[in-house]
């Protein structure tokens, strides 16, 4: 079966992630959407690795996972601190800085 389809799939996933970032209010969900985007990229990498017949892509996927994990730590920390202040995780409530 044609590996190119996986590219399309990953593109779809990426798009879903992007849309998620734009439409969801809950910080956690927004953050998860971003994770989705990263994983979509992972899929792409693996697919390309298959297409090119080199292992580099797969190794890169591991790198990405590690980085994503690190991101999670930071992100949750920030979101949590804000939640403790505002008792809300809606990204729309956070807009003192504007104009």
């Amino acid at each position: 079966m044609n590996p190119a389809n996986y590219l399309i799939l990953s593109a779809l996933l990426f798009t879903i992630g992007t849309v998620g970032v734009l439409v969801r209010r809950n910080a956690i969900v927004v953050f998860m959407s971003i994770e989705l985007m990263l994983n979509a990229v992972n899929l792409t990498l693996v697919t390309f690795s298959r297409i090119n017949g080199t292992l580099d892509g797969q190794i890169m996927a591991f790198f990405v996972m590690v980085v994503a994990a690190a991101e999670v730590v930071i992100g949750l920390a920030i979101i949590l601190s804000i939640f403790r202040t505002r008792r809300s995780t809606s990204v729309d409530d956070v807009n003192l800085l504007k104009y």
Partner: protein
Amino acid sequence: MRVEPVLLAATEPGNQPVHYAAASGVFSLSWLLIVLPLAGAAVLLFGGRRTDRVGHIIGTLTAAASFVLGLVLFATLLGRDGDDRALSQHLYSWIPVNGFQVDVGLLVDQLSIVFVLLITGVGTLIHIYSIGYMAHDPNRRKFFAYMNLFLASMLLLVLGNNFLSLYAGWELVGLSSFLLIKFWEDRPAAATAANKAFYMNRVGDVGLALAIMFMFATVGSTSYADVFGAAAAGVIGYGTLTAIALLLLLAACGKSGQFPLQAWLPDAMEGPTPISALIHAATMVTAGVYLIVRAGPIFDGTQAARTVVVIIGAATILIGCVIGCAYDDIKKVLAYSTVSQIGYMFLAVGLGPAGYALGIMHLLAHGFFKAGLFLGAGSVIHGMDDDQDLRHYGGLWRYMPITWVTFGLGYLAIIGFPGLSGFFTKDRIIETAFDKGGTSGYLLGSIALLGAGITAFYMTRLFLMTFHGKPRWSSEGPAAKHPHESPVSMTGPMIVLAVGSVFAGGLFVLGHSLQDWLEPVAGTGVEGVHTFSPVVLTLLTLVVTAGGFAGAYLRYQLRPVESVARPDTEVSLVTFAARHDLFANTFNETVAMRPGQYLTRFLVWLDLVGIDGLVRGSAAAIGGLSGRMRRLQTGFVRSYALSMLGGAVLVVGALLLVRAG
């Protein structure tokens, strides 16, 4: 040290050699003529109040010294033979820029020396007169300073040996005239009159400036020698020559208060009377005539321009006369008579070489009697506590006999009473006008003749209303007047001038003395065929003059004169027009002043709203843009993400587009 240009000019083939000998001996002092009064002025102006006490002395002495020097030069000139009486002195290089080389240099010749004598002579007399007249004025020192300044400028005007020096003098006399008209500057009228005079003169000056530019563009020089050399050689095109001539004429009209620029002269009477006598009667206003005679070689080359000159002359004669009949202000009447008399001079010089000498002659004679008349008027005004209204005078001869006599002589001279100067000079002009021949000749002649008649009328009116008839003033009551004769310092000059006005004319005419004297400059007046024999014409003139006299006598001597003028509503249309200067001022206002004011207002508005508006508008636009754009920064993280996504899509799209294309 540059070689004297004019000498080389003579060697240039194809040019009429216009040869001015380099000044030497006593003539190398001719610069003192100008510097003496100038120094006087400087001392008085910068000396400040310290010189208050001696101011008038210094002023008068410097003027007199200058006059004496003039006499010496004149005498020396008489000593030299006819064609060697033009001496040019190169003082220093003024504006040297490559092709444009202008020197400050003087030219003492038959024409300029005559003017020097007139200016310094009359000037000195009026200085003396002013000592008395201005005795009570706190600013007398300044007055004398300005008068000296005027003398210097006027002398520069007539003595310069190139057109730019003349121009300098030309504008400087304008300045001194301005300063003296507004001498009593707390009078708004005076200030306004002064400005008016300066503005209208500037219009004339534009003409002179342009003329000089034309000369430089054509001849490459502005010195009399080169320009006249070229003009005489006929190398300059007729069109150019005419253009130059007309521009010079414009200048002359401005300075001499000729139509259409005559309106400023009567207003100029706001100045102290001695000034009216010196500047606005005897000397400065005749500068126009000097200019035309001096530029004779140019005018000789262009019949067209000359025609314009005579037309203007003739027109001005009538304008002056007509208005002169209507005014009740003694100085204004004299002013308008000046206008018309200068009209005679223009008429004369417009007739070409034949008339140059006559013009100058009348100019000199006029210088005497008109100055005398003004001084007399001044004396009267002085005695009547600065009242200038004829209708408040009457029967003054008893109270100020000397004034009466001197004024009377001047009066006779101007109307051309046989034997007095006016009689000789004016008649010759009328004669020459007729001699021009053809319809134009008759026309001009009869205008001149008519002018003589009217002159007789209004001068008689003036004289009678002032000195004869019943007094229309009272020595009691609030408006009490105590007419009295003026001090010697004033009457003295009047007497001298009276004498002058009696004999000058004869002196000039008999044996063509002045004509011969001026011949090298003005050219020969070829005795053409007489339209009428002189005798007939003289009689004719006398008759017309007598007519004018009779008219005035009947109206103003045999019938009582109201002490208040009839209101405009009850007078004939002519009188009404005349009283309003034939609407000259109205014309100027509606054509020049008002539109100018509107234009100015409009431009001020335009600059503020239009041009600066653009500047401010653009700033406002950017500011507004900023104000709107910052609203996009909503503070919602998701909208930021959206804008980023938009950007991303754009970038991707753009690059894919590039790829496709």
